[in-house]
């Protein structure tokens, strides 16, 4: 069933290459700052290049895990080093290897103290993030899930803004408190699976078939829900996010928004949906409501932000609300849209944070009121900003449109009213993004400090242009990506719609909720 078509431990190589890089960088003398930057970028770029075959050799016809590696790890309890990807995690792995080198490239000027430690941190973070997406053993998953907290904690705490200590503590403790609940659920799942099937396993693929009774599913679902909802973050668990984003250095924000938040949504797809199908149906409406509140709440709060970065941070709450909505609509197109939305958010929001970083680097302020008329001063910058703004508000032709449209369609197919209601959310996101854009770029230059603001340099072109390619690629021909995730999503929905063996009679109507599976052409 499991296959590794390359006969080569490609996933381990891309996961642990950055760790090797971290050791190499650790050996370089602190004074050679540029050498450190080049070496780090080299490792990250190499990592991306090695990850490309994943895309080409991925077999879209099967939902089984691919590029699998399996080594016994903790023998007395049967934990394994078991990694692999399917159509759901494939793109998150690629997004990570793609985004991190770009984020690192943006720090060459911005980070000028403790350069060595910073680059080691970013390399370690890469290993942690990739580990989360490739783990197929839940103990291994948990280890990576927690490990990547440490570098992010350091990154915000050391290179962050004036309130960095508060922000990073809040980030760490909030996430940690959520994850320890998941830890208890992981332990319980391990023993309960044994109780109902007679085997001890921490193999996620096997646990997806675990026949758990209704009431147990509920507790486990809730424990996982807390951990993932904090990470996404869903309203009302989002309060750590604006702090973390505002205080984090640019690269930290990019990785936080681009990849770390996806761990939450990915966790739902990997654990909650397939493992607790009854609860997925039972809680779907509640989660959809929270997601919709998040969509509107994020948009409304973003409207009144004076700080560009905080605005983009709140827009994340809104965008990931779409992702959660699509997921819990439990339709083929909805879930696919949800995954697309994750990728798109990584690209557009990542790019927006990079763009904010560019002006911040020059002017050391992110207040919208400090700017105005930048379009005439820095035309290339304004053009980039425009495109990513449009992508963020989901204008047709850009990637954002594909994701949001699919999510809305999925929600509409689930319950018409949801699709109609949420379609209005788009108006609000256009409002806050375009208002901000107008105030920063149009009108006359009012602030003399902005005169002589240099336009983008080659390095900045280099890290934004690749993102631009994907804005249009996904926007115009999304099938490149959708075709690879289709079978996996179909299988996921099949798992969600299975009836579990031990279900008390009174709950039958809930587990039998019919779901529309739409075949997309």
């Amino acid at each position, binding site marked *: 069933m499991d296959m590794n078509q390359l006969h080569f431990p490609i996933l381990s190589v891309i996961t642990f290459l950055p760790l090797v890089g971290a050791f190499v960088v650790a050996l370089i003398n602190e004074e050679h700052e540029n050498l450190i930057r080049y070496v780090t970028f080299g490792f990250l770029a190499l990592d991306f290049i090695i990850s490309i075959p994943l895309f080409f050799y991925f077999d879209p016809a099967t939902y089984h895990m691919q590029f699998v590696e399996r080594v016994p790890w903790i023998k007395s309890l049967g934990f394994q080093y078991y990694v692999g990807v399917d159509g759901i995690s494939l793109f998150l792995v690629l997004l990570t290897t793609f985004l991190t080198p770009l984020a690192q490239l943006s720090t060459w000027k911005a980070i000028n103290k403790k350069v060595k430690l910073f680059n080691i941190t970013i390399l370690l973070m890469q290993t942690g993030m990739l580990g989360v997406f490739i783990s197929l053993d839940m*103990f291994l998953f948990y280890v990576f899930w927690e490990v990547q907290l440490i570098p992010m*904690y350091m990154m915000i705490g050391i290179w962050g803004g004036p309130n960095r200590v508060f922000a990073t503590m809040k980030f*760490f403790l909030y996430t940690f408190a959520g994850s*320890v609940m998941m*830890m208890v659920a992981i332990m319980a799942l391990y023993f309960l699976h044994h109780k109902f099937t007679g085997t001890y396993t921490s193999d996620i693929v096997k646990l997806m078939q675990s026949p758990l009774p209704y009431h147990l599913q509920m507790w486990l679902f809730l424990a996982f829900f807390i951990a993932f909802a904090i990470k996404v973050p869903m309203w009302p668990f989002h309060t750590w996010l604006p702090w973390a984003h505002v205080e984090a250095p640019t690269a930290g924000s990019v990785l936080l928004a681009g990849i770390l938040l996806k761990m939450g949504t990915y966790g739902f797809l990997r654990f909650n949906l397939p493992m607790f199908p009854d609860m997925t149906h039972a809680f779907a409406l509640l989660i959809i409501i929270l997601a919709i509140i998040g969509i509107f709440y994020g948009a409304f709060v973003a409207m009144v932000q004076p700080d560009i970065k905080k605005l983009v941070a709140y827009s994340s709450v809104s965008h990931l609300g779409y992702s959660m909505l699509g997921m819990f609509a439990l339709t083929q197109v909805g879930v696919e849209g949800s995954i697309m939305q994750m990728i798109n958010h990584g690209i557009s929001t990542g790019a927006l944070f990079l763009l904010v970083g560019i002006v911040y680097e020059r002017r050391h302020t992110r207040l919208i009121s400090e700017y105005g008329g930048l379009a005439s001063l820095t035309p290339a910058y304004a053009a980039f900003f425009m495109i990513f703004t449009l992508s963020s508000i989901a204008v047709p032709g850009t990637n954002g449109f594909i994701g949001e449209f699919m999510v809305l369609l999925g929600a509409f197919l689930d319950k018409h009213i949801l699709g109609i209601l949420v379609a209005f959310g788009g108006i609000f996101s256009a409002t806050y993004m375009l208002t901000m854009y107008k105030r920063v770029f149009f009108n006359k230059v009012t602030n003399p400090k902005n005169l002589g603001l240099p336009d983008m340099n080659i390095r900045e072109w280099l890290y934004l242009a690749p993102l631009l390619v994907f804005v249009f690629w996904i926007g115009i021909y999304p099938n490149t990506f959708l075709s690879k995730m289709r079978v996996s999503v179909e299988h996921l929905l099949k798992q969600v719609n299975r009836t579990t063996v031990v279900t008390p009679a009174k709950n039958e109507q809930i587990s039998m909720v019919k779901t529309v599976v739409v075949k997309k052409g």
Partner: protein
Amino acid sequence: MLYSTHDLVAIIPELILTGFAFAILLIDLWLPKRAKTINGLLALFGVVFSFASVLTMYNTNMTAFNHMIVMDRASNFASIVMLLTAFVAIVMSFDFLKREDYNFGEYYEVLLFSIVAMEILASTYSLIVMFIAVETLSIGMYILTGFLRNKDESVEGAMKYFILGSFASTFLVLGIGMFYGLFGSTDLNVIRAGLTHASSFYKWIAILAFIFVFVGFGFKIAAFPFHSWTPDVYASAPTPMSAFMSVAPKAAAFLALLRFVAVGMGPIEANWTKILWIIAVATMTFGNMVALWQKDLKRLLGYSSIAHAGYMLVGIVAANELGYGAVMFYLFAYLFMNLGAFAVAEFISQKEDRGTEIENLRGFGYKYPLIGAAMLVFMFCLAGVPPTAGFVGKYYLFSAAVKSHLYWLAIIGVINSAISAYFYLNIVVVMYMKGEQEREVKVFNSIPVKAVILITAICVLYIGIFPSSFLSAALNSIIF
């Protein structure tokens, strides 16, 4: 002859230590002041030889002295923990005693004798032998706590420890007496047999006796509400001894407690698990809550060690093999993380063993990158964040609780972990995120201490990433 040579085989590790302790006692008399380090080296050799003997006899399972002493994998595993702790503590003491000008042979000699007592405590099923061992090791600990005899705090700490310790011992002996009165023996196997057929009245008396005995053990492992000596003693004792005391006597006391509850109290398991459930929750919650406000590193580690005793009690309350094995594993993991953290405390300490305020760590991560990184590892390890030994240890402790369906206990445990993350991470904040130190802080530039810090940090990571063989050893050590 009263005892055969066969009996002596079972106590070879203890005999070796005793021999070296006497050797130090004699040789010390002829040593000139500048050569006193030889005492330390002798003690180190004693520990190494004892360790080697434990390893060679690791899988033996024998009883000696009319079933008073046993040697099994559990006692050997605990001995390994204690001897490793002693080894590290002795290495940490070399330069420390020189700096404080207290380089006396008695220090090492008392240390070795107390390890003998700990090993005996870990290898007996007889309550009365346990009592004698507890008393002997306590005397050693009192002396070592007040070893810097011109330092007021140190003497005060020793006095407190002594008075409270004697008080706890009276409860222990009272409990033992009650068991003897009930079942006519202090052997745990006999008590178990008696309890199995005991009337409910006898059982209630036995529960009372259990509580009294637990007071004695609870005092040694620093369980709430018998913990109050811990912070004072840890803060005031010579730092290497604080490190030693935070691990080795606990390892012995935990194994003795395990034997006591798992073997002796087996028939009243339903009762004692309830009592210990409350104690475990109270211990970890209290330790963490109070640690939140600490300003001194050694004192913080004192409170944190209370919390960790609470975590380990979770494994005992789970009352299954996984739990007991997890306690053993946790002791092993705890040894490295705690000794490492105490070694950092020693590294920043000034003469007279002062200056261990957390504030003195400001900017530490940049000034001493390697030692700072090691401290970072210890803090994440104590907080239970992977990939460290502390995480693996906590994972097994709590999963043992989950296995016994003690979900609330596990949840309270992990919430406590999250709370504890705050004060451990606060140290990381001070080291890395608060800027540089304004005034020059002199550190204790001792090469052995630095080596201890780095090696324990590597061990903590290694055990965290490849825990398999250590875990199997810990799980297999539980054969009762």
